[in-house]
């Protein structure tokens, strides 16, 4: 090969590698950044024994919560705090029936964006619940969250049904006696359509 051909070849190789690099970067750029839960990366560990026997004097509810927290290791406490914070955020943003009534006709023909957002948030919460099955306090908080959500008649039927479904699954997993009789039949029917006992 002549020097000129070698030079052309070199230019071609540089161009090829550059375009390949740009292509790969472009593909990566198209992939959205995943929403990640900012949680400790440490896997769940067994509870560590209580080291301190001194307990501050507080109201009964907060004493109970603090006692619960004291029985958890650091990772579990972090996860619990994260869960409680997230659950509170989500609960404050759950759309109510009245909110759906304010939407325009074209916004309710298919699932409203408000409910899509709720689905995303409830999904993230569920992932946390599934991620920490050995965190008993977190599991109890989850039960409270789902029960409060299912009990509230101001929430749309779809949200109440999903919450009741999750509450029922948690009861199933822990062998708990949970009574569904207070709930409207239409909600119970929707919940059973999701086959809570087959999942």
């Amino acid at each position, binding site marked *: *090969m002549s020097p000129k*051909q070698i030079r*052309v*070849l070199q230019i*071609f*190789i540089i161009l*090829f590698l550059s*375009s*390949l690099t740009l*292509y790969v970067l472009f*593909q990566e750029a*198209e992939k*959205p950044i995943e*929403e990640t839960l900012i949680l400790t990366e440490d896997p769940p560990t067994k509870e560590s024994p209580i080291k301190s026997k001194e307990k501050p004097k507080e109201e009964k509810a907060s004493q109970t919560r603090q006692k619960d927290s004291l029985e958890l290791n650091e990772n579990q406490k972090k996860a619990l705090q994260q869960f409680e914070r997230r659950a509170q955020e989500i609960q404050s943003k759950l759309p109510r*029936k009245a909110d*759906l*009534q304010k939407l325009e*006709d*074209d916004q*309710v*023909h*298919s*699932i409203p*964006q408000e*409910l*899509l*957002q*709720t*689905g*995303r948030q*409830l*999904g*993230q919460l*569920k*992932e946390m619940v*599934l991620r920490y099955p050995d965190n008993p306090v977190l599991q109890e908080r989850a039960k409270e969250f789902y029960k409060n959500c299912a009990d509230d008649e101001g929430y*749309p*039927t*779809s*949200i109440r*049904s*999903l919450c009741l*479904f999750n509450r*029922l699954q948690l009861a*199933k997993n822990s*062998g708990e*006696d*949970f*009574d*569904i*009789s207070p709930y409207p*039949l239409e909600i*119970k*029917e*929707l919940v*059973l*359509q*999701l086959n809570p*006992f*087959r999942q």
Partner: protein
Amino acid sequence: MAKLTVANILLLYIFLTSVGATDNTLSISFAPEISTKFTNKQIRTIYRDLDFLSKMKEWRDFDPEITRGTDLAGGASNDLLQWLGERVKYLVIGKTGALPAFYASDETRLYPNGDTFPEAMDNLFIVENHNQQTMMANLGVSYYLFGKSRRRLISLNIAEHFPFVPEILDITSPRVGLIEVNRSFFNKESSITGLGNRPADKLLRLSFIFHEGRHSDGHGESLGFFHSTCPAGHDYAGRLACDTPANGAYQVSATFLKKSAEVCESCDEASKEALRLAYLDARNRILDRKILTPDQQETLNELENKLNELVRSMLANFNSASDHQKNILLGEMENLEIQIHILKNGFPAKVYWKSAPEALE
């Protein structure tokens, strides 16, 4: 060994860059005609959604009653695509894209079921006073009804939208499958994950397409499977956002969403939870209640009490019961559900079992 010439290097370059483009390889057996007014990105989104569906593994069987009432069968993705292909044939973009110009024939045409129209004809005036606001709309059935109400054949000049098909489209049946898509269909905010390109997002968009496809069915009273007004107390009370027949468009999208949550292996748990909520929203729009007599209400209360007790029993014994015992309990539960359903809806529930579309000859 081949000479390292410029030509060979160029060929090598083309070959290597084309290998990197395998992501764009599609293997779908059905694809609607898509208007040239869509952007390339929008077209790619639609094709990739359909491709995703075609590559999903076998779906679990659908409820036989649902299959009977909607022709929607599980089993293989190709069955679903075939169902869609029979009902969704042309996609046009809404809002910015002008609708195809339409013409009414001079001569009178005799339509089948000539004097029978759907109870809710909310879309009748969409042709005359078009103001597309919903995410998607089945224009084919609207044009068909427009023609039927005037006993004229409606034809559309679609050359501007679809340059590679015959210029004139005669609306002889709702199965002409002309669907209008609003730009909000492609918005990230209208997706499950908020990102727009995850498996669950594709499945949600597909559920909308299946929903509109169902509007291509029906004849006489069931023509178009139009929506009903949601009753007082409903989440969407007073809106045309419910269905009275149990085999309408919301049943189709609900069934698709429920199965999606069950079979989507590439969906994370958060996405599945969101798909469940979407299913519950759609399922709750199917109005299958009638007014009960006092005796029927009493019977319903008894059945409900039995159901409550059965659920408690299930919870109490779930961890200790054998699979056989669980199946017995589940069978009893399903049996009770059916009894409740029959009592509340009558048997059969309002279902247009024969939902084949009518058509002009």
